[in-house]
């Protein structure tokens, strides 16, 4: 069974994010970049499926500038078999990413597509769902457990009220939540081996997808710093403030 894993290059979670002075976005110049943590969990799950003998081949795909190849190589060092890089310097929004991935799915015909539930840069939580809708595959999002049984996959999902398990026919889309697994580190010998694994490059045009952003960013601002609170003398004053100042009751 072939598994396709999508990975995204994002700002490293250890970096203190700074907004550009002109408020057009986050400053990414000279900032350390890394694989999105949820995507690391997706790669790990695919590698575990391969170690169990469920998956036979893991193909890892990333969309973005040339530097994305670093994250593809990382995934190859973690155990993926080959990489696909869809190269573009343009901004890629969720729907476009989903369309590009759909084109890759049609080419590769994987039985399972695993993605992170969201990326820590834009936090949209959309691409997996959109990909499922575009391809007509079933979706198991926010996965905390993935069990493949024959031509079905049982996905345990983390929802507000607890856990729910869905059974999906393969092929299917799974998006990973934080507790699905604890990703391993790439080992140094595997980093060397990853250098020799195949990595195909292509462009959105090669896949017949035109990048046309539908959303425009108006302004990016750092969260407002928290204001100091006030002390109230008694419950009556608190109720009064809630009613007349905050107007929440």
């Amino acid at each position, binding site marked *: 069974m072939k598994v396709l894993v999508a990975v995204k290059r994002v700002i490293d*979670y*250890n*970096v*203190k994010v700074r907004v550009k002075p002109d408020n057009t976005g986050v400053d990414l*110049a*000279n900032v*350390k970049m*890394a694989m999105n943590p949820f995507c690391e969990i997706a790669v790990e799950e695919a590698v575990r499926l391969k170690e169990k003998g469920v998956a036979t081949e893991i193909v890892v795909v990333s969309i973005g500038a040339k530097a994305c190849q*670093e994250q593809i*190589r*990382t995934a190859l*060092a973690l155990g993926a078999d080959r990489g696909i890089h869809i190269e573009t310097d343009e901004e890629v929004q969720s729907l476009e990413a989903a369309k590009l991935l759909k084109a890759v799915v049609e080419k590769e015909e994987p039985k399972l597509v695993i993605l992170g539930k969201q990326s820590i840069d834009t936090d949209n939580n959309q691409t997996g769902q959109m990909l499922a809708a575009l391809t007509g595959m079933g979706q198991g999002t926010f996965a905390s457990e993935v069990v493949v049984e024959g031509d079905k996959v049982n996905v345990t999902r983390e929802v507000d009220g607890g856990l729910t398990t869905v059974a999906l026919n393969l092929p299917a889309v799974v998006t990973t939540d934080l507790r699905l697994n604890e990703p*391993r*580190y*790439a*080992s*140094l*010998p595997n*980093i*060397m081996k990853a*250098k020799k694994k195949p990595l195909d490059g292509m462009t959105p045009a090669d896949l017949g997808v035109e990048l046309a952003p539908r959303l425009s960013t108006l302004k990016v601002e750092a969260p407002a710093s928290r204001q100091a609170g006030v002390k109230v003398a008694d419950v009556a004053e608190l109720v009064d403030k809630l009613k007349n100042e905050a107007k929440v009751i």
Partner: protein
Amino acid sequence: MQQHVINTQDLAFQLFELHKTEDLLRFDRYAEHSTETLQAALDLALKVAVETFAPHARLVDEEEPRFENGKVVMRPEVKRALDVLRETGLIAAGQSFELGGMQLPVAVAQMCSGMLKGANVGTHAYAGLTLGAANLILAHGSDEQKARFAGPMLEGRFFGTMCLTEPHAGSSLGDLRTRAEPVGDGSYRLKGNKIFISAGDHELSDNIVHMVLARLPDAPPGVKGISLFIVPKVLVNDDGSLGARNDVALAGLIHKMGYRGTTSTMLNFGEKEGAVGYLVGEPHNGLAGMFHMMNEARIGVGLGAVMLGYTGYLHALDYARDRKQGRPFGDKDPLTDQVPLIRHADIRRMLLTQKAYVEGGLALCLEGARLVDEKRYGENEADRAEAAGLLDLLTPLIKSWPSQFCLEANSLAIQVHGGYGYTREYPVEQFYRDNRLNPIHEGTHGIQGLDLLGRKVTMAGGAHYQALIKRMRRSITEASEIPSLKDNADRLASAIDDLVGATDAISAVRGAGEAERALANASLYLEAFGHVVVGWLWLRQAQAAQVGLDTGGPQAADFYLGKLKACDFFARYELPKVSSLSELLKEVDGTALDMADECF
């Protein structure tokens, strides 16, 4: 969360713009590598440092290992972190592919372990000592010893130690008393007591391989009668399986100021029938064998000191940017907003001092690492010999300068934090305590001074010293062409003249037969020499930064400007110290030497 292990821009700048590490890839040994694989290894080491090492650095300081029922008990996080080192292969990053390593250039392998040291030096030491002990077996052991002991050590199944010090013999190794008697089957039985043995006992690995210095029955007295032995905690059978427990007993743990995560032990060899040991290399040649490995090991010590200073600096910088205290100079209005600490002149001076020390120290260690590679793989004999000579000369500086000045950086990091820095709520006090070991172990500061002035400067008729002075003067000529660097180049030239004057004056006194007086101020000479060399490396950093600025290099413009300013700072605030030290050194003063013991 922000990581405080290293400034990744500085790491990339130092490795690839200052030291041109990619040039080393021309050597056959590194042919399989590209800058991408080097970067991937560094990224991995930083990730492991931040995620697996840093989080328990405080825990192992607060709950140091305990001695219970003859065993060492410690926090479980230590074993987990070391398991990650084993699984990722980071323990043997610089070793050959066939030994399971990644065959990384020395500078990159050193940085991988350096970041782990900065994140948690107490936990890293177990791996560092293991690598040092394995290297010793690889360099001097028989094929059988390499397979039986070094192999499992590089895999991380066995850990290692260095057993030199005895209760009555620390720096004075020639006086050690541990005995080794041959028993006729090729092995020996050892009896003696060792102290301050780091990582001497623990439950972290299947076995512990002690590298022990001891005397054979026919040994001549002094340093020429010391042999090196492998003494495993558990005997290893011919098929590699573990056998009986050897006669090595843990007598107790030592409780230290810092580095508390690493057990420091008292070990008794041969309380009963004698501990089984195997001779490594030639009889009576153990000390020479061990010191043969010291150049690289001492780069590791210097880099450890740098990285503890570095993490302190990054913490202090963050604190100074966030913590609001006081108002702008001259603003007396108590109703205006307070400003961050970094707005105050004295805080800025302390931050820049730390930057100048830690980034200068890093450049020094990486210069040494590069020389190790050039010494081994250089194109021709002359290049290799020059690199070896320079490395010999620089080694005492690489070990000692960061141990002195990056420790001072740790002190300044506490000062920037004010009262909070003195509390255990903030990590900077621990960095200071951890780093305080570095001027003491692996050859004290004083011994490094004697090594530099008494041996290295005059070695090969002073050829290595002359070669270094020539290299530094060549850099000055180059930098003088660049208007922004001219003034700094002049200041360095003057510092070199002062140092040369001091060297000549001391040589004259030594030539006249007054060796003790000539060497009496060797540790001050070490300090002056170190400042000159680091001043040289700052000039080279500034030169590389100017290129980066002019050509739109890979780092941010502010980063390059910071390098230029730090070079200005070092030239103006630090290099003048060479002048005053040289004045003193030129007098070859003996005030302390000559004073009667009773007068102290």
